């Protein structure tokens, strides 16, 4: 046991270093968002001026709302499209299925930039004016394959007779879908939706190539602003990162607490 603990110490140090590599840059960015001067290297005093700047900056606020609304719409549509496709896939002919799954893999394996210019060429050869709609379409298009890859494996594990049983018992096809299939696929659908949301919210490359008319998301605005030192980006970073951090902690830790409490109540009941 003693011997193990020395190696544990080494493990802790190593993991600590890697985490430092991940989090130090982020921490530094957050730290300087509270700087009273424009410097990103010398801390001259605490101030909230960059947060005030951020809120009064219409451009950034517009970008935030574009990022959020696109991520929400893309997630909803991609999840619906991906789920019905996954269910359909298990029932259709082998050739169609294999072909579609292979096509579906292309955007996942293809370099993002190639996918992006594909969309760009598509939209400009159709003479579609670039902007919010093109960005949304592109986001749905690159998110759906991820939903399918997380829902379809779950569909495959289902008993194929399940739907038949439901239908035999008098359910309409819609009821069979809604009451039998979907609840069983819940986990996969949720995982796919989560993936779609983060992919869309984080995206830069594809958005950069398909946007126009002054529509930009957070990534694009940050990209345009990196040329000049601008602690307003630090303030934006701090807010975005804090929200993500809190959400992740809540999503992971709340179920843990709930489970624990359930166990406790169970114990109480038994005793």
């Amino acid at each position: 046991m003693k011997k193990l603990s020395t190696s544990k110490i080494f493990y802790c140090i190593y993991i600590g270093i890697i985490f430092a590599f991940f989090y130090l840059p982020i921490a530094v960015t957050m730290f300087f968002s509270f700087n009273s001067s424009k410097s990103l290297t010398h801390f001259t005093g605490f101030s909230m001026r960059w947060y005030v700047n951020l809120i009064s900056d219409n451009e950034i606020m517009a970008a935030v709302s574009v990022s959020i609304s696109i991520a929400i719409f893309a997630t909803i549509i991609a999840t619906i499209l991906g789920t019905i496709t996954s269910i359909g896939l298990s029932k259709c002919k082998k050739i169609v299925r294999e072909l579609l799954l292979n096509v579906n893999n292309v955007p996942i394996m293809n370099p993002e930039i190639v996918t992006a210019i594909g969309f760009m060429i598509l939209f400009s050869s159709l003479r579609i004016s670039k902007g919010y709609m093109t960005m949304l379409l592109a986001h749905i298009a690159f998110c759906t394959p991820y939903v399918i890859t997380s829902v379809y494996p779950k569909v495959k594990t289902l008993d194929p007779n399940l739907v038949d049983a439901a239908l035999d018992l008098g359910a309409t096809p819609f009821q069979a879908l809604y009451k039998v299939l979907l609840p069983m696929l819940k986990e996969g659908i949720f995982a796919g939706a989560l993936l779609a949301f983060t992919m869309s919210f984080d995206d830069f490359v594809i958005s950069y190539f398909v946007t126009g008319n002054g529509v930009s998301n957070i990534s694009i605005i940050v990209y345009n602003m990196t040329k000049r030192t601008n602690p307003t980006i630090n303030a934006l970073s701090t807010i975005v990162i804090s929200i993500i951090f809190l959400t992740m902690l809540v999503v992971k830790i709340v179920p843990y607490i709930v489970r624990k409490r359930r166990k406790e109540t169970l114990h109480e009941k038994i005793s």
Partner: protein
Amino acid sequence: MKHFKHMTGPYILWSAAFIVIPFLLIILYAFTDGGLSLMDASFSLDSFQEIIDPLYVTVFSRSFQVGLITTALCFLLGYPMAYMITKFDEKVQPILILFTTIPMWINLLLRTYAWISILSDNGIFNMLLGKLGLAPVSIMYTGISVNIGLVCNFLPFMILPIYTSLSKMDPALLEAAYDLGANKLQAFTRVVFKYSLPGVLNGVILTFLMAISAFVIPKLLGGGQYTLLGNLIENQFISVGNWNFGSAISFILAVVILFTISFLKRIDPDDED
């Protein structure tokens, strides 16, 4: 049973419009010379002839180099990390994994932006060096800064699949190996590593794929003279306006990647499809 068959219909149309047609358009542009419009385009291999220029070959090989270095660094840093995480208590593991995952959720641009202020010539890193009495080093706008940015961003994508493979391994296997007389190294290479191979493969594919086609990180941390394939493509589409050449490079990149992946996937013993 036939009820849900037609549910693939919408996606067949959708993927034709948003996956197949864009790809065909890239191919169309790559093999023609009509400039920005397809109206007066005719078949031509000019773009491909241009790529043979030693200079563009340099860009290709530099991108591969960056891809390989990044993947190797991610593997060397990530494998021990994944392995060590599995050695922790089962209650601690999810927390460590959570902290590995969180950076993936944070916008890539924001993370790269964070590195700029640290690495630039008068940035925090050099300020610290100065406080320690050391001479400042010029890291920003070099291959080093690009690699730091890439590794920091892609490392979680290496750690997670390896961890997943390793955590599936039955510890009894390792004991069995020791019982059968294997030493530590043998036990590791013959049992542990073999078991984690699918995860390693997945991690390697992911990081290599992302690194070879990266263009934001090289652009922000490498400056205009640090051209990788991604930058070359962006440049052709955004500033030069030579879509034929840009498409030709994209086409080659896509073919190389798709080929490499399907080759690597074939090695993967776990892959059922």
